[in-house]
């Protein structure tokens, strides 16, 4: 990662190094905030992205390698976006009602987006950053694309086969391999990933 900032300069508080780092990290924080908040609170996206960079300024003091910065700031942005969503939905439902954020999101038409009931919602920023780094390493880009097309974009088996150049009979196998790779990463974080507790039996 040749364009990564000079970590020692950042940890000395060098203004120019931070300027470069902010520009380098901006697309990441903005993309995360956009992913989580875009459908519900689009006006908050930029604000959460900037707050995330502010939080990173302090968090960077304990970072060991510059390559850790992007996953770390993505985790910070994710957690801040989730908090912002929780506040938003808590205000909307008012006191005395206990329905989940996910239920509320379903009512607002986007049940698959992350919220308070997401398996990642209460993962600490350091652990989430590690999880993201491991997912990048464990899942090949083509596996990620296949899983995203199926589970996020709703492509059918036929469409997946055509798009990814696979035999239709092997689409399920490729999907399963992708999920298994994902599961291996999840199993390294069992104490935090409540959705994966079932795998530990």
């Amino acid at each position, binding site marked *: 990662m040749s364009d990564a900032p000079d970590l020692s300069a950042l940890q000395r508080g060098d203004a120019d190094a931070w300027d470069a780092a902010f520009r380098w990290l901006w697309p990441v924080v903005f993309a995360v905030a956009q992913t989580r908040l875009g459908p519900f609170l689009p006006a908050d996206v*930029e604000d959460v992205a900037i707050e995330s960079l502010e939080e990173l300024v302090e968090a960077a003091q304990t970072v060991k390698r510059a390559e850790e910065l992007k996953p770390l700031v993505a985790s910070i942005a994710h957690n801040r976006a989730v908090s912002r969503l929780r506040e938003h939905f808590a205000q909307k439902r008012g006191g005395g009602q206990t329905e989940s954020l996910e239920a509320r999101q379903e009512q607002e038409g986007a049940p698959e987006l992350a919220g308070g009931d997401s398996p990642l919602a209460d993962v600490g920023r350091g652990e989430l950053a590690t999880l993201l780094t491991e997912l990048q390493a464990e899942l090949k880009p083509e596996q990620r694309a296949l899983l995203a097309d199926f589970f996020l974009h709703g492509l059918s088996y036929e469409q997946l086969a055509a798009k990814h150049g696979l035999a239709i009979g092997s689409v399920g196998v490729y999907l399963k391999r992708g999920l298994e790779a*994902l599961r291996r990463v999840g199993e390294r974080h069992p104490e935090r990933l409540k959705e994966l507790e079932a795998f530990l039996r």
Partner: protein
Amino acid sequence: MNPMNDDRFLDLAMKAVAQQATAEEQAELDALLASRPELQTELEQLRSAARLAKEALPLVSATEATAGELPGYARGRLQTKVRETYGAAQTAEKEESKEAFGSWRWLLGLATATAVLALIVLPSVLPKPRVSVQVAMLDLAGTTRGADTNEVALLRQAWQDAPFESFSQAAKLEDWEKDWPQEAKGTVAKIIYDRSAGEVRVVGRHRGQPFQKTFPLENSLSETLRLAADYVKGIPAK
């Protein structure tokens, strides 16, 4: 279960997890689960992993994003945070450095005295070199508002003898920034006040080498201009 059934279960389970199963496929899956209850565990595992995929994959993609530009107004706020976080540590570091050099203080004193003597004597003997300064303001909203008048006055006051330009188009400012006087032998500095970005930028050439320093607008324009002026004063003229 034979391999054929394994493959069929996998396809049915995947589709069910992704909510793509037809009514017939869901019924077929239910029948399989009824005859082989142990498959329920596998289905749940797939469901959990798929849920993690839905949550984590967009984050992994976002971590690799490269498009988009930091808004100009955010820079000042972020640099303030940097100073708040690291400013104290930097000061402590400087104090440590001072202590470390304590034993060399007498030598430094001698050097300082020599430098002071040079500063007093030399200017009276040699013509004083100066950094050639040019000043510009970029206001994308145009130059008709009352607030601009005060800002222009502040800019002119900060560098009284410097030529001043006002631009309402970024492209024209860019042309101005690239236009360096050919005959200038010493250091040339251009001071640009970018209203929309909320910053004062100093760009220049010293011995053919470019230099640049940006001062985010934090408290007031006059304060920022003072910082920029101090910086320019510190640039060697030759």
